[in-house]
């Protein structure tokens, strides 16, 4: 017997109640025989004590035996390969659904039943509403593990898993023997590879240039069409670039075709590779693949100004000289005092070294340049009028300017310079000095999608290229990115900007925070003629800088240009005030037109970290091109509008090994103590599921006072005490 609450307090209260009852009688003036008095006191005290004891909520332990039914799991593969029609005239999915619906009632008779559909993830479904097979990949092992984990604590009858066995997702690991569930696998679909022609990808450079030849690679595979001619065509928009014939010699072949194109104008271009559907082909979904590419202006005229001979000047100059279609003028400006009288070529206050006679820094001559690189030169050394001409070239004409950090211009007079607003970084206490210790540069989220830092065409390869970067040195610390600027690369140690970029009117500005990037070039040697990442960075940076940002105050940028249907694309929208300062309070509207031409509006939210930056998300349900348009206004004044596109490719992994993988299903069954059968024999596995139920002791506590007997006892005691008092004349 257990009592709730603080027992001693209740017992004390019961004693007090009994004492008070006795005292009430003892103080009475009427004489009553001692025996009767004792009875009355005893009856009242007992009633009071009993009432108090009931308040203690006395309980007693109880045990009950309960039978628990075994739990059976029914898992049905809902990936896209299940839509293939090779199951006696039916799709695999229809065959699987019919079989599942036929055995489900029989399973429910014997077991508790949970039904799941799975592809790249697992979810419970109603056996009568199984949905459709649209999963983009198949992860059978994770599905078994998750279903097993959800059934923990129940006696397991086993899991019936209906699938074509195309495990193509999830981490590589051993079969799910430790899940504790016997898996009875049911194979569906043809065990022989289907006939199919697939275009798996169009590999294109992330950026192409007007009137500059670019190489595009089309990859794919052909199964079951040995000796048959297949025509692969590449289109730019709707214009045919070229076609190539393939005649596979064997039943299963992959192909890689190289196309070349010379884009004629700037803008976004969609390259699509297509093959015509073949008779008896598995699916036509994978007969086309596409890539979206930005085409930028071609030839660049660049002016590189530095202050003194140094390795950085030589390295950057070499890298820029290797950029195709660049006309580079490089000039060193030294203070006149540094020149000895005999030094040649001139006493003009500078010693131009390359094409010296033709390089002029007079304001009128600057109008021919698309790109300016300012190195270790004091801004005071630049000729009068240079500053205004540079500002005009960048802000109004759309030229670019790169700032190579150097103490010569990062001096206390910088904030007074009219060039300072063009810098993407703010300086704290000037002059800043370089930290001579080594540091590791790290790509930021903004840098991962910025054209100037795309060292590889694929996002993951670009991440890898930056993560394998050699250590850099001499980073200028104490600088922060200005509002509206983007930090593209930062130091892992101090988070100081290493590369920062921003728009300046119609032009662009890039800050390089180390004065020794040459170490990168020297530490990562390459064979002559090979593409060095250092050179590649400068080529990308030069081209990005030299391409005008146009006068748009609204800029729409998809996070990536290529997605897979079913993925969600993040779209960034930047809004600028008329002076091209960020517009954090802008009202932004966005719409998307899907590949079927259907427009829909998009919810837009402001970035919490970057003022003037907004984002929206587009779920690319269908393959094809998505065009996102945005407009913005601030204070009732329209800021402008912009649009951009991205491409969603049909997911193809589900069709790459789209035959029934019997060895995998057999191995899964064997490793878990189950069995494998063809879907035609699905009924044969029902007897194999474990019938054994479990009996469990359920222990609980039962209340003792909460019954009529306790009430009758109290009422009886009080009634008897009242009757006795009445009889003795006390009532």
């Amino acid at each position, binding site marked *: 017997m257990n009592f709730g609450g603080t027992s001693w307090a209740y017992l004390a209260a019961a004693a007090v109640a009994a004492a008070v009852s006795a005292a009430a009688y003892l103080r009475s003036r009427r004489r009553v025989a001692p025996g009767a008095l004792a009875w009355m006191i005893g009856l009242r005290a007992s009633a009071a004590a009993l009432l108090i004891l009931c308040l203690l909520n006395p309980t007693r332990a109880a045990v009950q035996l309960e039978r628990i039914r075994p739990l059976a799991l029914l898992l049905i593969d809902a990936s896209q390969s299940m839509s293939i029609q090779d199951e006696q005239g039916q799709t695999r999915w229809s065959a699987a659904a019919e079989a599942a619906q036929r055995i489900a009632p029989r399973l429910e008779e014997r077991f508790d039943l949970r039904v799941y559909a799975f592809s790249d993830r697992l979810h419970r479904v109603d056996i009568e509403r199984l949905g459709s097979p649209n999963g983009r990949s198949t992860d059978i092992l994770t599905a078994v593990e998750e279903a097993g984990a959800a059934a923990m604590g129940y006696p397991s009858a086993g899991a019936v898993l209906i699938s074509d066995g195309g495990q193509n997702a999830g981490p590589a690991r051993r079969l799910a023997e430790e899940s504790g569930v016997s898996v009875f696998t049911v194979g569906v679909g043809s065990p022989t590879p289907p006939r199919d022609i697939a275009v798996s990808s169009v590999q294109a450079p992330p950026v192409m240039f007007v009137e500059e030849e670019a190489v595009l690679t089309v990859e794919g595979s052909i199964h079951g069409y040995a000796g048959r001619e297949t025509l692969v065509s590449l289109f730019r928009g709707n214009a045919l670039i070229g076609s190539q014939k393939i005649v596979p010699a064997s039943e299963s072949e992959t192909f890689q075709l190289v196309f070349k194109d010379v884009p004629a104008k700037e803008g976004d271009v969609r390259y699509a590779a297509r093959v015509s559907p073949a008779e008896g082909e598995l699916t036509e979904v994978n007969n086309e693949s596409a890539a979206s590419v930005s085409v930028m202006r071609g030839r660049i005229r660049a002016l590189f100004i530095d202050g003194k001979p140094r*390795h950085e000047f030589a390295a950057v100059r070499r890298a820029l000289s290797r950029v195709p279609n660049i006309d580079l003028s490089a000039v060193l400006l*030294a203070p006149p005092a540094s020149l000895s009288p005999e030094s040649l070529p001139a006493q003009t206050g500078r010693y131009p070294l390359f094409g010296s006679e033709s390089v002029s820094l007079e304001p009128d001559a600057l109008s021919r340049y698309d790109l300016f690189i300012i190195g270790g030169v004091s801004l005071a050394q630049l000729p009068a009028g240079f*500053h205004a001409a540079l500002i005009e070239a960048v802000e109004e004409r759309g030229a670019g300017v790169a700032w190579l950090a150097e103490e010569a211009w990062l001096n206390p007079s910088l904030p007074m310079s009219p060039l300072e607003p063009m810098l993407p970084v703010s300086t704290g206490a000037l002059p800043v000095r370089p930290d001579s210790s080594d540091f590791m540069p790290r790509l930021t989220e903004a840098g991962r999608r910025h054209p100037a830092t795309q060292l590889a065409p694929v996002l993951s390869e670009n991440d890898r290229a930056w993560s394998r970067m050699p250590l850099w040195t001499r980073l200028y610390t104490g600088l922060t990115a200005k509002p509206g600027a983007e930090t593209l690369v930062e130091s892992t140690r101090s988070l100081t900007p290493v590369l920062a970029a921003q728009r300046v009117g119609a032009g662009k500005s890039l800050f390089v925070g180390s004065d020794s990037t040459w170490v990168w070039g020297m530490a990562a040697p390459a064979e002559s003629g090979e593409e060095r990442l250092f050179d590649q960075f400068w080529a990308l940076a030069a081209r990005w800088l030299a391409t005008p940002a146009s006068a748009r105050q609204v800029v729409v940028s998809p996070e990536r240009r290529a997605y897979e249907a079913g993925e969600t694309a993040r779209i960034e929208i930047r809004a600028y005030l008329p002076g091209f300062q960020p517009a954090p309070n802008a009202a932004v509207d966005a719409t998307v037109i899907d590949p079927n031409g259907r427009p829909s509006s998009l919810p837009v939210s402001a970035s919490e970290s970057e003022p003037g930056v907004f984002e929206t998300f587009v779920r690319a349900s269908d393959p094809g091109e998505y065009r996102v348009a945005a407009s913005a206004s601030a204070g009732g004044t329209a800021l402008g509008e912009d649009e951009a596109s991205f491409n969603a490719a049909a997911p193809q992994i589900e069709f790459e090994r789209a035959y029934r993988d019997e060895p995998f299903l057999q191995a899964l069954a064997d490793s878990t103590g189950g069995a494998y059968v063809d879907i035609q024999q699905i009924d044969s596995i029902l007897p194999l599921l474990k019938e054994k139920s479990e009996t469990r002791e359920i222990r609980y506590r039962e209340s003792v006072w909460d019954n009529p007997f306790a009430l009758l006892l109290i009422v009886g005691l009080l009634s008897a005490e009242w009757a006795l008092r009445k009889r003795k004349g006390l009532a």
Partner: protein
Amino acid sequence: MRIRIGLTVAVLGFCWTAAAQQPFAIGQVHYGGGGDWYSSRTSISNWLREIGARVRIPVEKEARPVRLADRELYKTPFLYINGHGNIRFTDAEAEALRLHILAGGFLFVNDDYGLDASFRREIARVFPRRPLQPIPASHPIYRAFYSLPGLPKVHEHDGDPAQGFGVFVDGRLAVFYAWSADIGDGLEAGDVHNDPPDIREYAVKMAVNIAVYALTR
């Protein structure tokens, strides 16, 4: 607007202060084969001092001894080979030197007398498909800082005329070999070899030109 900018530029002119950059270093190559790679250390100190004074760039005070197989060779782009005897590179050293130069490094070789045959043999191992080429007097290396008519003839050696040879990488003169000139001796103090002042000055100017060329190409 132009007036305001002009005034600002004028203010900036007064505020300009000398700026420090990474000091220029000369890596003196510690090669094998028995030659006296360590010779003329003081000439390198003099050379660095003259570069600092004349070009007005920060320089290290002493030569920086390096081995070609050092992991951190890349931190010293400018390499210098000097001596009188035999030069021999291991295969690893030859490969390291080749990659160093392809990455943007520069090698200056001074014929002190006696290393010609072994250097030509070794550089042919480093760049088997890039033979040493004569460098004409019109080449920019002779005008990188001072306008010079060609190499100085500091020591007579065998009486042959001084001649520059080089290896080009992507159009850049990346290895410069001064044969029968002995610029290194010309960089020594006057009382070391008793060279005439005008010859020593010529050698200094050529040595400055070589460094400036390497720092600008």
